[in-house]
């Protein structure tokens, strides 16, 4: 995210809620402020703000937007499929 924009704040609260619901205790969220560390944007190929990067498990996934659509966020995180399988 970039600074404390409303979209970023919404995204963070949405993410927190989803993780607590589907991955309680099994997640780690790192918040990067590109305004403070602009060089990180290049490394992670971040274009849109806010972007959620799922590093693990592979492959790398990017979920952009304020994560207001829970269904799509779950698909993006590959959680929807894994929850269905188990």
């Amino acid at each position, binding site marked *: 995210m970039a600074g404390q924009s409303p979209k970023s704040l919404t995204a963070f609260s949405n993410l927190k809620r989803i993780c607590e619901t589907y991955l309680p205790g099994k997640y780690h969220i790192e918040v990067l402020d590109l*305004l403070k560390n602009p060089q990180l944007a290049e490394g992670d190929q971040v274009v849109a703000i806010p972007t959620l990067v799922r590093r693990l498990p592979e492959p790398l996934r990017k979920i*952009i937007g304020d994560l207001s659509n829970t269904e799509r*966020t779950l698909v993006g995180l590959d959680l929807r499929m894994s929850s269905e399988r188990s």
Partner: protein
Amino acid sequence: MANSGLSSEVGKSLPKAPTGIQGLDEVTAGGLPRGRPTLICGSAGCGKTLLSTEFLVRGALQFNEPGVFMSFEENAAELTQNVRSLGFDLDDLVRRKKLRIDHVRVERSEIQETGEFDLEGLFIRLNHAIDSIGAKRVVLDTIESLFSGLSNTAILRAELRRLFRWLKDKGVTAIITGERGEATLTRQGLEEYVSDCVILLDHRINDQISTRRLRIVKYRGSVHGTNEFPFLVDEKGISVLPITSLGLHHKVSNERISSGIPRLDAMMNGKGFYRGSSILLSGTAGAGKTSASASFVDSACKRGERCLYFAFEESPDQIMRNMRSIGMNLEQWVQKGNLQFHASRPSLFGLEMHLLTMHQLIESFRPGVVVVDPVSSLIAAGVGHDVTAMLIRLVDFLKAKGITAFFTSLTEAGEALEATEVKISSLIDTWLLLRNIEVSGERNRALYILKSRGMAHSNQIREFILTKNGIELMDAYLGPGGVLTGSARLSQEAEERAGEVARRQEIAQREVELGRKREALEAQIKALEADLLVNEKDMETLKSMEQTRRDALDTNRTVMGRVRQADTSRSTARTKQHDTKKNNGF
């Protein structure tokens, strides 16, 4: 050039960032609008990325303006490799902090869109890149890729609008590239957002020959060339050929240079061509065009001038071998470095490429004489009026440089001799025509001067003969059937010679007769003189006889006087007086 004054004037009203690309700054009257974004659009493979890269590289090297290349398609390694062949070392520029390449990869498969977002990340990256090297120039190539990676076009459009605004506020000179759309300049209508300067690149195939063209669609607040300008991509990068930058302001020379054929010089006031003029030699196949051009080249090299020979039909070796057969050794000039051949098939590449190659060779070799043999074969490389336009540019270019240009043109059989296929005759200062004359079962070559601006020139047709000692021009005889050439001329010459012999014999005979007459008359004179002598002698005899008679008479008279006892002295005196009176009475 004439345009440099224009560009500096315009520069005051609208600041411009020179691109450093050959010709483009002339066309845009100084460069791209400084501190504003410029849209470069065109279909795939038309040279957008290359032009953008060159803009950054030249900016960094020539104008000390570092640049950021934000690539949405190729990564840094690919980009570096692509332009290495043009002599651009991007790695080095990156190391020296003159250039920064940022590859933005937007993969739809990796991205899930969930609600509201913006492109602040891109802004931050760009801002960071610009600030890290103090960049003055930015290239976004091609930002439309975002549309394939992200599906929310409403957001994208709003963000792009913001981006271009942001670039302006940042004060960087930016190039945004865009793929050409069906009915619009760009697929995503980027031209709506970038309104200061739009340049359209085009790569079109005409008769299987490709030409690249550049057109400035709009350039707000600046004059610019509105034509389509051909441009080329070669080993030195992009070159735009500005047609309009050439004018008719060249200086002319009064110096005359030999054509290499003494008799032809004689036909032109005895001095030959003007230096820096354009000469066209047109003729039918096998009329001797190449030989005449080689002859001109040979004489120029003998004067120590540098010659550049563009051969479009024969290889240099072939030309040199053929010219040896008429007594010209062109090899020595090549070895001495006075003569340079450039042979290529006209269809090898498009007209513009030919023209540019010529420009570059002329710029680097700096010749005094340029031969294009033949210009007519360039038709194969382009469409009619394109060829004419190209040749106009070439002629103007050569004239502006004061280079004497010698063009040959092949006239197809059956066509009017005085029509050049490429229609450049009006540009030409001296036009020589070589033609074949068919008479009495022979084909012979004839040459005449069709026009020659600014000099008195002969109107005579001369027979053009290739001998093993070079080219010779002979007087063509006029006979009852027209001009006599070849064996007809020889027989005419023989006839004249015979006539002369006969005349000479007659004179000799007359001389003999006259001698004889003189002898006869002299004999007559002698006879008459002898006659006169005889008469004179008779006269003298007569006179002496008379004297004798008179003496005798006097003696008698004295004797008589003595006898009569007269006063001797007085009577003698009286008698003498009386005699005198008597003599007078005779």
